[in-house]
């Protein structure tokens, strides 16, 4: 197993290189440049040229790429032209903000959707199942920004139960538990929107997967042994229904760290999603490269985790 993981990690290197070339090229051929966006609009052409040269943008693309690779390998991802800070100082704190929110959503969504999905499958077309079908339809079709605004309107503006936006009360000097509670209060609305959206598709997914499995012959065999329905469903059927769910878990790993761009904007949550959007709008090349590549690597790791998860839950899959 360890050898397999090591081999997969080695295989990732060329993939990451190819991805970085693709990202780099696409970013650079996009019209616009950071020069002028971050400087005084009245600057002269000479000043502009000087800025280009300072940022190394006058060099041919392959040279620029080589420079970038050289720096990055030394752990220097450059300076963000937008925030005027080293990229490696900006990204982690914003990723952490997104992660905090997503981890709640992740836990809630999976903890709720799996039992709900199982019940829906076992009692197909029952009242419970129909309720969750309608719920899922709602969750999938409702745009998150609109649903977010609705929640803000009712629960923040009208009822005043939760703050409208942000991550903590501005200007407050709360410490310890009070600070944590304050942050949790800010988290409720965005987490609700994200959870409902994820729950909707996860419930459908679990339900379909379960429905597939409970029609299998080995479930009938389990029943014919005299096992109780509980054991039949949760031991025999669910272990098999888990296989496709493991894939989903793998996909979720990058989502945990990446921000929901639209939702973070609606709730003014200072997550990585917003930062990435800003970086793109302001052509902040270094920040874009770092964040996009970070997500690419996370996706690769997520896939690897899914494959390892597969091998753990399904004895038919051998990773060696």
């Amino acid at each position, binding site marked *: 197993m360890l050898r397999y993981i090591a081999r997969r990690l080695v295989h990732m290197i060329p993939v990451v290189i190819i991805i970085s070339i693709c990202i780099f090229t696409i970013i650079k051929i996009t019209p616009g440049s950071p020069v002028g966006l971050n400087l005084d609009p009245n600057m002269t052409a000479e000043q502009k040229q000087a800025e280009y040269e300072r940022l190394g943008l006058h060099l041919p693309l392959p040279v620029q790429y080589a420079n970038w690779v050289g720096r990055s390998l030394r752990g220097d991802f450059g300076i963000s032209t937008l925030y005027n800070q080293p990229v490696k100082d900006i990204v982690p704190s914003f990723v952490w903000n997104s992660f905090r929110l997503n981890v709640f959503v992740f836990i809630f969504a999976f903890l709720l959707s799996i039992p709900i999905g199982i019940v829906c499958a076992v009692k197909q077309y029952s009242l419970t199942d129909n309720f969750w079908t309608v719920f899922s339809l709602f969750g999938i079709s409702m745009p998150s920004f609109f649903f977010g605004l609705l929640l803000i309107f009712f629960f923040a503006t009208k009822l005043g139960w939760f703050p409208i936006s942000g991550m903590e009360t501005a200007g407050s000097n709360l410490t310890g538990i009070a600070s944590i509670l304050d942050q949790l209060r800010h988290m409720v609305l965005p987490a609700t929107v994200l959870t409902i959206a994820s729950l909707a598709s996860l419930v459908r997914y679990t339900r379909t997967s379960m429905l597939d499995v409970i029609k299998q*012959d*080995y479930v009938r*065999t*389990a*029943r014919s042994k*005299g096992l109780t329905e509980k054991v039949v469903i949760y031991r025999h059927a669910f*272990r098999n229904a888990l296989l496709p769910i493991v894939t989903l878990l793998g996909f979720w790993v990058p989502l945990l760290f990446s921000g929901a761009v639209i939702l973070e904007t609606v709730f003014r949550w200072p997550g990585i999603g917003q930062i990435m959007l800003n970086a793109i709008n302001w052509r902040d090349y270094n920040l874009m490269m770092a964040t996009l590549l970070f997500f690419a690597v996370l996706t690769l790791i997520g896939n690897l985790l899914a494959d390892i998860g597969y091998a753990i839950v399904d004895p*038919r899959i051998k990773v060696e």
Partner: protein
Amino acid sequence: MSDKVLEVKNLKTYFYTDKGVVKAVDGVDFSIEYGKTLGIVGESGCGKSITSMSVLRLIPTPPGKIEDGEVLFEGRDLLKVSDKEIRSIRGNDISMIFQEPMTSLNPVFTIGDQIMEALMLHQKLTDEEARKKAIEMIKLVNIPRAEKIVDEYPHQLSGGMRQRVMIAMSLACMPKLLIADEPTTALDVTIQAQVLEIMNDLKEKLNTAIMLITHDLGVIAEMADHVIVMYCGKVVEEAPVQELFDNPKHPYTMGLLNSKPSIIENKERLESIEGSVPNPKFLPKGCYFNPRCKFAIEKCRQEQPTLEEITPGHKVSCFVACKEVE
């Protein structure tokens, strides 16, 4: 106490679909004696499997429903006992082998786990005892390397081995009745013979009664003591095995026997029964077999025959056959 381990009376299992009611099993009677084998024959879709699943109440409800009848196992009506009681019988007193060995074992559990499960549940064996017993059972069905196999997963075994594992699993608790639903259909001929031999062997060792469902008359001849022939959810003929092969009375049974290849008579072409099994939602009026029957008379098209005993132990549901005897 009677010598019958299982007695099924007037069993009716219907399926309620959007397009109408399917009377999959429509008033079936039969019984099995201790240590004997009852063969149930018929074409696909005649209700054989549904009959066997009804005995253990394994019919998915809805859409299926056991509408009427009694299933007396050692005098107890299995259709009336509580869910808990039927579970204590399943896998313990009555167990089943299914048609598809490739899909009937759970792919994510080891062979040992799956055999041990019933033992630990019904016989209250400890982990260790159950494992020992599982290995013993695997040896009993002639699988080599039992100590290794017990920790292997179903996908590591061949179809024939899996079916033998199924047999080991179903016999682990020494059931009084084994329901085998086409146990050899998915296997190749040499493996078929081995599996049947094992079943026969164990029947004698453990005095287990067997309800053997098949469409293969060769298997019936090999295994069964008594045979019932089913057509469209009804029993059309019932007789001891020798009597049935020597002296078939129902035109359907004759048709089945004629369509069997023989190495003694050198037939150019196999005979077949004209037509096909009618759609169970639109059964013909009168005898269900009349549109395909060479001997059908007017009465067959109007009335439904009932199962009549024509000679001791030999029952047939056919106007023409009954008249002949008179």
